[in-house]
């Protein structure tokens, strides 16, 4: 099946919990307290513990690799964090094809909170196989 500009990636909805943040902290080796210690997070003027930016990036990475499968290879993946997200709320990962030139595909990807606010935005490029 050919890939066309405007094609939307199937949404990937994650339901992160504080437990998952702890699990991710261990797996990544990032033990910054704002991801599991409520009192600490509030002391540094956050609403509470927040998701690791790189966990949101990993969710968006899965969005892309689930969609791409073995049709091609990820070449670049770029994410910017625009807002904080808290555990206990669904996190919706979305994406759309923005360019197809020969074997090169570009995507825009983003993560939305419950209100539909894009708290993570990014792009990915992939090279399709022959």
């Amino acid at each position, binding site marked *: 099946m050919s890939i066309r500009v405007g094609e939307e990636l199937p949404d990937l909805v994650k339901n992160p919990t504080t437990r998952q943040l702890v699990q991710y902290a261990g*797996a*990544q080796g990032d033990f910054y307290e704002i991801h599991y210690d409520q009192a600490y997070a509030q002391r540094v003027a956050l609403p509470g513990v927040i998701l690791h930016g790189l966990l949101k990036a*990993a969710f968006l990475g899965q969005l892309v690799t689930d969609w791409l499968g073995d049709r091609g290879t990820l070449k670049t993946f770029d994410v*910017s964090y625009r807002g904080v997200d808290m555990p206990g709320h669904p996190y919706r990962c979305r994406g759309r094809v923005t360019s197809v030139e020969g074997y090169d595909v570009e995507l825009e990807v983003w993560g939305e909170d419950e209100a539909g606010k894009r708290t993570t935005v990014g792009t990915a490029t992939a090279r399709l196989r022959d």
Partner: protein
Amino acid sequence: MTTTTAVIDRLRSRIGAEGPPVTAVVEAGHVRRFAEAIGDSNPRWTREAPPTFLVALAPVSLHLAEAEEYGHGWLNGGNRFEYFAPVMVGDEITATGRIADVYEKSGSTGTLLFIVFDTGYVNQRGELVARLRGTTIRR
């Protein structure tokens, strides 16, 4: 503020300097724990590392102790990965990081300090497998 300027000047003087290389083996168990933590059950991750795994293998965008004199907390601004070859379970990866840029910007809640780290990842065959640019913010 004099202290703030001094912190920025000290950090800026380190732009371009490479940190010590960190070498680590891509272990099946570590990749599995990482995939479980992100909730990605793709069986591909039993052989290969998922796209953001390299940050777990050899964390190099360290929280610089000297930057902690600025503001009161860290935030991740963004991450840009470039991939040149797959990272497979069993690979031995050497990561080398450097500070690429340090600058201050005014935001809606006051000034922020941005620290940009570049990291290169090379496998056991000497192939550059990926590059990562990470922007870390002190607020």
